[in-house]
């Protein structure tokens, strides 16, 4: 809880610490169990070999796991300071096949001084694969405590 963030201490252009995650089949299976989303496009390699929902013969990670890791960029950065995520919008651009390694990050783009306890910032979020290709983009509204 060192270096507590406040609405006043955060500035447009601040870059949030990145998260990196290798997407093994085990990581996908654990997410399936955690989310109760057992869709075979994520969980069943044999089925994926023929069904090829995304034109790929292998499982892909859950779109909501991508969204969860993008969300974790926010929570890792600000939740120890008592922040609150109030809105998240994510566009999923490319499927993420098993074996990928993705990086997730964000940058503060707007400050909204709308009132104590409700002041929020907008963070532009991104997720990239190991080739530097964007697999998802989004934005988050994050309520930050006042000084």
């Amino acid at each position, binding site marked *: 809880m060192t270096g507590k963030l406040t609405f006043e201490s955060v500035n447009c252009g601040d870059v949030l610490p990145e998260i990196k995650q290798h997407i093994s089949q085990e990581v996908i299976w654990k997410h399936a169990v955690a989310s109760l989303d057992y*869709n075979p496009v994520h969980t069943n390699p044999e089925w994926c070999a023929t069904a090829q929902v*995304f034109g790929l013969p292998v499982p892909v990670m859950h779109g909501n796991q991508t969204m969860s890791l993008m969300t974790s960029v926010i929570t890792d950065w600000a939740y120890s300071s*008592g922040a609150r995520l109030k809105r998240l919008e994510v566009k999923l651009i490319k499927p993420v096949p098993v074996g990928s390694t993705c990086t997730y990050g964000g940058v503060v783009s707007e400050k909204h001084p709308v009132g104590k306890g409700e002041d929020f910032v907008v963070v532009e979020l991104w997720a990239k694969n190991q080739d530097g290709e964007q697999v998802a983009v989004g934005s988050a509204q994050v309520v930050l405590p006042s000084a």
Partner: protein
Amino acid sequence: MGYLEEMAKYQKTEKQKSFSADFLDQEQVEEYEFWDEIEIGKETVVPLRFEVKAEDMIAYAEGVPDANPVFYDEEYARKCGYDGLVAHPMFTTQVLFFLLRKGHGSWIRTPGSRNPGQILEWYDPIRVGDVLTLKTRSYDKWIKRGKYYMRYLSELYDQHGNLKMRGYMTLILPKTREDVMRFVRGEHALEA
């Protein structure tokens, strides 16, 4: 070992252990609602309830994976200014999949479905002990570049009627029951 047995190794919570992981079970799929059958404007309050336990919230954070102690340690969360253990914001995914099993709203389970993106808004923290209900309403469907889209609204309420989360969800689905059944058989069945 099959994929279902592999995943069973990770099931720890009461809900995880009681939930059917076989999304290719034809009997369950028969009870889904398919793209060409979706009635726009229809609203449903899902009869099931989700009683939030700490183990549910912790299990979701583990599966992200996210090791932030606010999701695991109630005392630490209180020191950070929260009124109890914090749910990872995307914990609502687990709630929706637990509640949406058949009929209106079951689209999220469909073999062959694709997720192009979502909008989520959180209005009040989900807390241990909450009993959550889900209201869902289909409000648009369209065809674009040969793909069959639909959009629906999901709202989670607690036992006091407080709105916890509103989601504007979009999916790309197989068009018909037969298209879904082809996917169930492992055939490639997309028009696009």
